[in-house]
Each structure stands twice: as C-alpha cells, then as structure tokens.
C-alpha cells in the first residue's frame, strides 16, 4: 500500500521554493510596466475644492494623471456593496478616486501613472489639492453621539442596526436570581500582511483581452468586478493571484480602488501598468478591524448557569461599508461560543467614522465576541465564587446535544447550527495541559518569591468553511503528472501540500506527481475565495470529489483495456492493477493516452492513441456518447452550512509588581478542527494565529487623534509582537470529525487568534484582582489601573 498521506505531518512542499527566494510576488512581476502612485487625502473629512495638476504634468516620465472627472462610466461609479443585507440600510462605498469629498485620511484622490514609481511619486508631490475641512467623526463615542455626520444621508452615523433574539430575554432576565452588567471596549488592529496589496494589469489590444494579477484572496471576485467595471466580456478577462505574502482578511475585500484603476489605466494607455502598495498606504488606505464598545447583561442562577444574555454593541465600520456587516454579524452570533445562553438577545449598531474602513481581519469579529462572552464567564465565576473552568463547564452544550441549533442566522444567511464538538473533553484536555488544578500551588510559590502571576482561560467556537462552494479540477497528463486546480487563493496556508495529500490518497499516486494551482481563473473559473477558514473544508472536499471522478474514469478505461470489471482494479503508486494479479497492470499515464483518441502523434506515448495503432474497438465511436476526451474531471463541493471548529486556550501571565510589565509565561491550546489533513500545517496555523492574537491583546492599536490622523502609521510606532514576545505554544488536539463533509474536516485558519485577547485579559485579571474590561492593555495602562483601584480601595 502507498502510505496514506491524509493525516501525515508532511513538510510543506512549497517552502524550499519560497525560502530560497523562488517566490514570485506581485512586485516581482511586470518589469516593463508603467507604475502608479496616488495622491491621498491628508484630511479625515473634507470637501475637495480644486485639484491642480499643472506642476506635475511636466515631470519627465509622467504618462497620465487621473482624477475622478477622468473616470468613464462604471469606473467612476461608487465601488460595489459586496455583501448587501436587509439591515444595512445606509450602505455607503467610496469611489475609485474621490468625488468631491474625502472621508478618511488615505482615500485616493489622484492617480499618477509614470514610467516608474519614483517619477510617479515625484509627480504626486507636485499636485496641489485644495480642501475645505469638514468636522471629522473619530471614535465610537463620537460616532454614536452623532454631533457630526460622516455621510450627510446616514443619520446617526448608523449604517446598520440589527437585533436578533432567541427566547424571551426580558422575562428570563427579570426572573434570574443574579444579574451582572459589563461594559467592554476593544481597540482596532489590522492584518498587516508582510506583502501589501498590489495590482498588475496587462491589456492586450491585439485581442482585446485583459490579464490582471492581484495580491488578492479572491481572483474570481476581482475578475468579475473588473469585467463589470470595464464592461468587458468575462471571457476576455483573466485574473491570477501570484504568490501572495499574507492576507489575513484584508485581501478578501475587493475590488480595491486600485484593482479597478490599474486595469482601466492599462487599457486606456494600451500598456501594462502596476501598483504596489507601500506600508504607509497599507496603514491608511487598506482596512482595519476589531474596534467595538460592548454592553453585556447576563442573568444566571446560583450554580452560574446562564438564564438570559442581553448584548448590545457598537461597531466601528470606518468610512464605508463595502463588505457589509459581516464582522458585527459574526460577533453577534459567534459570541455564544460553546455555551447555552438560556435566552439571548443581541443588538448592534454599525457606525460610520472618518477612519479607514473596517473589513474582516483573521478572526473576523470573533475575538470581540469571545472577549465579551469570556469576560462574562469570569464575572459570573467571581460573583458566585465558583471556579472559572467549572462555570464554563456548567454552561457547555453537551456532545449528545449535537447538532445544536442556536436559532440564530449566521454570516452565510443560514442557521447557526453547530455540527460537532466535545466541549467537556476539550476542557479536560486543557486543564490537564496547563495544570489548572495545581495553579493555586504555583501561585502561592510565586507569591512567596514576590512575583505576581495569573491564570486565564478562553473558549470559542468558530464557524468555518462557509459556502457557497468551491471546485476542483484534476487532469492527468500522459506522463502521469497530476494537475490539480482549485479557484480559491493561497497566501501561506500550504495548499500545495495539504490539497496534494488529499488528491494523492484519492488517486493512489505519489504526492510528488501532484501539482496544485490555486487562484488562477484560467484554470478554475468558478470559485469564491480564501477566508473564514474555509480553504481546507471547501477546496479540500472539492478536490477529493474531483479525484473520485477522475479515478472512476481511469478505472473504467483500464477495465476495458484489461478486460476486467472496474471493481477488480486498484491504483497504487500511479499504476492500475488487477487485485491479486499485479502482473496485469497499466499506469495512469497510459490511461491518459488512451483517454484521448488522436489523429496526430506528438510523442512516443501519443502514438498509441492514433487511429492506426489498432488499440480501439471499431464498433464504438472514439468518444462514447456520455464521455469526454482526456483523463480529467471536476466537481464542486457545496455544503448546506458551515462547519464549527472549536478550541480552548489557557495562559499563565506574570505582571511585574513595579513596572506592570506583562509577560506570558505559558500558553496552552486545545484545538478541534475535526480530522487533520496535516497536523504540522494545523500546528503552524495555530502558532501564527496565537502570535497575531498576542499582538491584539498586548501591543497593536490604531492611534487616531481627534482629527482623524493615524499617528502610528509605520512599523516604528505600530507594535507587532516579535519572536521575543510570542510565548512557546503548547498544543493538544481533539479530533471530532465533522459529519457535514466526506473528509470530516473543519477549518483551522483563524482558530489561534480568536480567544487570545480574552485569555490574556482573564489571566491579568486573575493576577491583579480587578476587572480588565478594555483591551489591548499596555504596561502603562495596567499601572494606571492599579493606581485607580488602589485609590478606590483606600477610600
């Protein structure tokens, strides 16, 4: 037997190429291209009075300068509202280039195309834009107060208001023996992929076709938008995601203004054009996430069981809502985690501010929801004097209650129905891993040494693998090479490895023969994209289904040739043989030759398929009625609902009694993403996720001043954790397979990030003995909290 690949810790096959500089990222492409640079708004909110490009026109090497007035037809219209929702009553999107008004610092106002970026930047410097400043709305409180409006026609700065309720919260709350209210605050952060965005477009005037390369998480999405904006037949537009240096969500947003403008300019100028985002542009003109104010009221019994949960929160959606209200919807639904709330009411307001727009960032609303729920769990435990793990345990959905329907609508418009999970088992593993029951001793010992330590915990459930679908296409060449294509994109997930493992198993071929292409509309025109921890679930199952199609075809052709029944055949190492009679065999390459009857031979192998080779039955047509030439096939995977992965994290932190420095001593993860295709890759995803979570918990924030200027728009001032700040991560896995898909898998991409803020807050609270309600938290903030609580205690 060939060694089964599924479940094996196969080392990432793409790494040798990427680690030795063989990657081809967006800016590695297009050596002959003109390059674009943008004049961006220096004001958070202003009217554009005049744009004077005179001084820029004469710069040697400038090819074109565009303002909104130059944009024809659909190119000059507002960018699409990608995900409409009935509650999104005041959706607003920007224009590719600002039309009359700017709504955040960094909004593109003028596009310059020049022979290279240096020239383009010089020209940008010479363009003078006169503005009339308007009062900016910065911060959730100001947006809520609505003394000024971001969009005159969006009253109260509200883009959306949504209420969901399950059960009768009012009466359940009234009848609850205990109630608590928490006011919580969570700051902005951002994806910060190593490679920013970038677009490279090649218009071919000879055949009037357009090829677009974009550093995107959805090449099919970009393709469709570009074709629509430029009024081109879809067949004349192809979009390719080359190697992408990280996405984390920001690149699922599309089309970015540049994704419309660069292809349009390429056609307009009949020349290839490229734009590569620089870091400052990424800070001020891409997207952020996370910022919310939350108010949680919970009613519970003497045992700590929730009877009613009433949540209101205010979500900062930035200046525009092109991605709809996906993030607050996810917060509202995924907040519940592994718990039964008794009855649940959740209401949110999505608010406009004059800041960079907000679209999903790894975790996508879940870190905020988890923070609200887990802070609530700790508050119940503190109120009743019950162990924090015990309170959680008492509220868990039990394994025999699966599938568990919360009665809410999830982000995919389908029921929030958990498919699988064993929360008590996960908690038991976590307590064992971190030494939960021995912590009191550890703390006593630390205290004796004058040290302050705390233990924190956080649990989450993550809807992963949302639809609508993904496809797989597999073609076996005459030399036995297996070409696999799926339409979603890759930005570090290791699809070249994990998807190849699945196909190698299904087809019975060595993994070395399997070559995976992602994010290329020339190879797979139907796809959605890489987000919501969905690639393994969606494309993993799609390529598995496609492999089954191809396998069946190969066996059918081989059965004819070997004059046996297909059921008597097996495939191993790329060779089909009769079970029990290994001498009677035929390799897949030969089957590929036979699958494609030829008139013309192009190589030795092909001769066997030509018309005088005598290899066919003259009574039958070369291609049967229901058949197609070629050893290839495709299939699509489209589930009825999302799969729900889950996990529980615990951390031990130490806070310096004098400086309030916060150090993570231990970080433990128990993770359940169903069957693991590749535990090494899952582990890597968890590690990367925790690292980003640590950033969100302790370091990263977007510092806006009252005028809407982002003050820390560089890596000098925006802190990301280094290896020195990311703790050693101890992991354990529970595999409860999803019943929803043939492979039994659930997503893993965002898991590591989701609970970290909640866990660190819990641990700091445990160390300090006062509530932590606002995250991220810095040493100066902790120090100030200590002083405030000391004063309160003294008085």
């Amino acid at each position, binding site marked *: 037997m060939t060694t089964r690949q599924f479940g094996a810790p196969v080392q990432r096959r793409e790494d040798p190429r990427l680690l030795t500089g063989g990657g081809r990222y967006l800016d590695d492409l297009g050596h002959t291209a003109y390059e674009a640079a943008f004049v961006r708004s*220096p*004001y958070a909110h202003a009217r554009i009075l005049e744009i004077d490009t005179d001084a820029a026109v004469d710069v040697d090497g400038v090819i074109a300068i565009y303002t909104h007035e130059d944009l024809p037809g659909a190119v000059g219209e507002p960018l699409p509202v990608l995900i409409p929702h009935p509650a999104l009553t005041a959706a607003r999107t920007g224009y590719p280039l600002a039309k009359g008004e700017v709504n955040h*610092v960094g909004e593109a106002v003028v596009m310059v195309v020049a022979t290279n970026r240096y020239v383009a930047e010089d020209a*940008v*410097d*010479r363009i*003078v834009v006169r503005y009339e*400043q308007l009062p900016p709305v910065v911060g959730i409180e100001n947006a809520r107060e609505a003394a000024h409006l971001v969009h005159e026609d969006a009253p109260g700065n509200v883009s959306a208001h949504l209420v969901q309720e399950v059960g009768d919260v009012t009466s359940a709350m009234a009848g609850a023996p205990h109630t608590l209210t928490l006011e919580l605050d969570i700051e902005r952060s951002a994806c910060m992929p190593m490679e920013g965005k970038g677009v490279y477009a090649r218009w071919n005037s000879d055949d009037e076709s357009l090829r677009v390369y974009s550093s995107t998480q959805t090449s099919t999405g970009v393709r469709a938008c570009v074709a629509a904006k430029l009024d081109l037949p879809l067949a004349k537009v192809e979009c390719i995601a080359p190697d992408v240096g990280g996405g984390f969500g920001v690149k699922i947003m599309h089309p970015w203004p540049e994704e419309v403008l660069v292809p349009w300019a390429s056609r307009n100028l009949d020349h290839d054009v490229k734009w590569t985002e620089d870091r*400052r542009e990424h*800070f*001020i003109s891409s997207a952020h996430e996370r910022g919310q104010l939350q108010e949680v009221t919970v009613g519970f019994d003497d045992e700590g069981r929730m009877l009613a949960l009433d949540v209101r929160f205010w979500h900062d959606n930035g200046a525009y809502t092109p991605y709809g209200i996906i993030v607050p919807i996810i917060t509202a639904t995924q907040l519940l985690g592994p718990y039964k709330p008794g009855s649940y009411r959740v209401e949110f307001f999505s608010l406009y501010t004059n800041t960079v727009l907000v679209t999903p960032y790894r975790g996508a609303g879940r870190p905020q929801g988890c923070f609200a729920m887990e802070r609530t769990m700790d508050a119940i435990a503190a109120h009743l004097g019950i162990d924090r793990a015990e309170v959680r345990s008492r509220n868990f959905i039990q394994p025999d209650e699966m599938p568990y329907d919360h009665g809410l609508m999830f982000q995919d418009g389908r029921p929030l129905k958990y498919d699988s999970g064993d929360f008590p088992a996960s908690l038991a593993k976590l307590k064992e891993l971190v030494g939960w029951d021995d912590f009191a001793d550890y703390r006593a010992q630390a205290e004796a040494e004058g040290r302050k330590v705390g233990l924190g915990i956080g649990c989450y459930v993550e809807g992963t693998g949302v639809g609508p679908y993904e496809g797989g296409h597999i073609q076996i060449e005459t030399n036995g090479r297996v070409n696999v294509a799926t339409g979603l994109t890759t930005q570090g997930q290791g699809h070249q490895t994990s998807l190849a493992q699945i196909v190698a198993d299904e087809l019975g071929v060595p993994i070395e023969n399997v070559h995976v292409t992602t994010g290329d509309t020339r190879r797979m025109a139907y796809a959605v994209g890489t987000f919501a921890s969905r690639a393994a679930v969606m494309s993993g199952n799609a390529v598995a289904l496609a492999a089954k199609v191809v396998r069946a075809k190969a066996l059918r052709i081989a059965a004819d040739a070997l004059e046996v029944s297909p059921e008597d055949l097996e495939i191993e190492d790329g060779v089909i043989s009769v079970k029990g009679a290994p001498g009677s065999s035929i390799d897949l390459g030969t089957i590929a030759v036979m699958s494609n009857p030829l008139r013309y031979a192009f190589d030795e192998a092909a001769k066997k398929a030509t018309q005088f080779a005598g290899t066919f039955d003259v009574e039958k047509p070369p291609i049967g009625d229901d058949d197609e030439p070629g050893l290839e096939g495709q299939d699509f995977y489209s589930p009825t609902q999302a799969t729900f992965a889950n996990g529980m994290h615990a951390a031990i932190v130490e806070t310096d009694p004098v400086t309030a420095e916060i150090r993570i001593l231990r970080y433990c993860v128990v993770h359940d993403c169903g069957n693991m295709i590749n535990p090494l890759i899952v582990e890597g995803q968890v590690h990367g996720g925790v690292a980003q979570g640590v950033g969100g918990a302790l370091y990263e924030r977007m510092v806006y*001043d009252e*005028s809407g*200027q*982002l*003050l*820390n*728009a*560089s890596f*000098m*001032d925006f802190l990301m954790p280094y290896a020195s700040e990311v703790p050693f991560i101890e992991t354990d896995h529970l595999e409860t397979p999803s019943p929803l898909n043939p492979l039994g898998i659930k997503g893993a991409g965002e898991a590591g990030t989701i609970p970290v803020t909640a866990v660190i807050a819990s641990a700091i609270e445990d160390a300090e003995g006062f509530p932590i309600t606002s995250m991220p938290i810095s040493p100066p903030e902790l120090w100030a909290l200590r002083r405030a609580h000391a004063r309160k205690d003294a008085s």
Partner: protein
Amino acid sequence: MKISGSNTLTAPVDQVWGAMLDPAVLARCLPGCESLTTTGPDEYAMRVTAGVAAIKGTYDGQVAITDKDEPQSLRMKASGSGAPGTIDAVVDVRLAPHDGGGTVLSYDADATVGGTIGGVGQRMLAGVTRKMAGEFFTALDNDIATGGAVAVEPELAMAGAPAAQAPTPGVGAVYAGRAPAPGGFDLGDAKGFVLGTVLGGALVAIGVLLGSRLGRRR
C-alpha cells in the same frame, strides 16, 4: 498635537513684540522660510521648506495674527500644506518681562499635522518643533541685537514700486527668507539629514510647523 514651551530672550518685551510683528524680521528668522508675503494687516502668506527626517518638502502656508494685546499676548493661526502633509495650528504667545532683564516668551500650540508627516513623523514632531522654536527665538534675539544687520530689503511685488519707497510694508510686499539656512540647525550627531520644523512665524511663528534644513555633515 499640543506643544508648550518658553524661551528667554535678551531683548526687552517691547522690542520682541515689535520684531514679531515685523514681516521682514520674521522672514529672516523663520527656519526654512523662502519667502513671506503680506496679504493683509497681520496676515502673511509664506513658503517654507521643511521636513522631518526624509519627509521633506515645500509648504505654502498662511499666517494670521489675531487677539493682539500689546505687548503681552497674541494668537497666531497658521495653516500650510505641501507634499509631505498638512499643518493647521493655533499658537497662543505670551510675553513677559524677565526678572533679570529681557523677555520670557511662552507659547501653547495646538497643531494638527496630517499626511505622511502626521503618520510617520509624529513622535519626532514635538521635539523637533520645540527645538526649531528655540532656534527661531535665538535668531529673533540676534536679529534684534544686531538691528537687523543682515536685513533683507522687501521687494514689492508690484512692478516698478521701488522697495525703498515703501515706508511701511504693504499688502503684496515680499520678503525673502534665508531658506536654505546653511548650518543653521546642527543636531550634533544627526546624520546630515534634514530635520524638521515649522512653518513657524512667531512661534516659529506659528506653531511651527515642520522643519527646516539642518546642517549637513561635511
């Protein structure tokens, strides 16, 4: 961004007051000032070359002096924009006699800095601005002490109007600054890059904006 500071000048209050309202003096003393044009009573347009670190450029700005309470206090409103960013500032300036003679000049500036310089240069701005303000006041003091020895005569923008015939500077008078100020602001070990300043007229005139040239390493 709020910046406060004070400097002690050797000249008496009256002279400092007068100098601060004299566009010719301002043009001479403002770091990076290329030109200053009166656009109305106590209103000027100016062009300043300034920068923080590598983010440098030429700013066109407007300055207006209001709320004059001679010779104790005044308010300057300044705004400017250029390739590296934008500045809007309100500066309250107070003058008081110094015990040992001379003048204590204190200021409170509230500046909004936008664009590249706001996002990238932010943490350097307060320090740079304070330093530039100090340099400005020193230059002002020296200018008073030397009676404007190196004064530059105003050139009237109106053709044919001889500069010498302008008894008092009128609207449209243009005063040349000393902008590329060689060796003006050497930050010790700073690597010969251009550091910042201010559009600052009085406080640095104004709030000071962003930067002027620093001495280059030879």
